[in-house]
């Protein structure tokens, strides 16, 4: 049975997928994950998930972000707010970054 492994490097961060292990049950999967994925890289916490429980959706079969122009739902679509509200500027920056990376993928 295949178990997908997610590692959180430090407390407070996100668990990110780092590989998988072959194991007959959850306990063994946890042990193997600790040995294979928690030994060298910094690790605070590991998740193991049975591969069969994972639902998958691929960009080839699904239009992520929709198929129409949705510029109205991006901060970058509005030409207001200069450098006065730092948290709004930060959010806009994150959105700009996400948009750029999305366009690179497409």
């Amino acid at each position, binding site marked *: 049975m295949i178990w997908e492994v997610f590692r959180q490097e430090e407390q407070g961060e996100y668990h990110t997928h780092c590989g998988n292990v072959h194991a007959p049950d959850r306990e063994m999967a946890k042990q193997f994950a600790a040995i294979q994925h928690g030994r060298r890289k910094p690790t605070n916490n590991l998740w193991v998930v049975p591969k069969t429980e994972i639902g998958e959706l691929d960009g080839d079969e699904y239009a992520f972000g929709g198929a129409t122009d949705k510029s109205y739902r991006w901060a970058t679509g509005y030409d207001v707010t200069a450098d006065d*509200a730092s948290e709004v500027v930060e959010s806009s920056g994150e959105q700009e970054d996400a948009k750029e990376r999305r366009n690179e993928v497409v």
Partner: protein
Amino acid sequence: MHIETVKDRAGPREFSPTDDLPEKYREAATRMIEFHANSEIMGAYLERPFIRQAPSIDRKLAFSAKVQDEIGHGQLLYRAAESLGVKTRKEMLDDLANGDGKFLNCFHYPMEGWPETAMIAFFVDGAAMRRQATLRRTSWEPYAHAMDKVCFEEGFHVKHGEDILATLMSGSRKEQQKTQEAFETWWPRIIQFFGPTDDQSKHHDFAADVGLKQKSNDELRTAFLNQYIPKAQQYGLEIPDEPRIRKNDEGDYEVVEDDLDWAEFFTIAKNEYEPGVGQIEGRNAAQEAVEWVRETIDGTDVPSGGQTPQAAD
């Protein structure tokens, strides 16, 4: 974990569901996140009619996207609250429907016309974002993670709100007048968004000691006023004479608290303010009207191969 250990360790994103946390921490965090989640939902219901009343197709699209976002934020936050193990998502939603769930003061007031959308979408969302940005460093990890996504999306809401304000304030004289009137109605409520001053705040000390709350009411209110008073003036809004706002020795804006209607604020906090009761009942009625949709979904067989979803999902 002992409460003193929690206080010692308290820091950004310090505690997660794997930690054995004392009841007092769990309850305080639940109260705070549930309030936040409820506010997202009630805010969405308040703005929903303006999808229909939007003056252009662009505004209509933006408002429907925004309302959708806010409901999504509510869902994220109920998950973060539920992970504390004090209340289930269903209990929180039921409490909101039956009038026991608490939410933001501003969302107890009905909205009458389009110029008021700028008050919610720019000033209230701006205030909310100021607060939410600090909560990315809260000690409950699932809450901080929810805030990452909320803050990412919220930038669009505030800028859209500012865009509405900019349009209204460069429109006809009547539009400008209506917007000024809306501003005068909403301004004191918006200042009260941050709650009573620190010395009057009931829950602050503990929430701050365990790292749930990162900034005090006073710090947030001051930061908001410093940013948004110049903004309002830049668009030609006149700041009302009351509540009196003065600059202190450090150059920060300060409100004369006695000029605000705290009796109304605390009536609202108890969910006893008449128009607010209407908002709660309105949402409850909308919920009941679409009960058949939930029933249809619940009645659908779960496809084989998947786990049976948790009752709360």
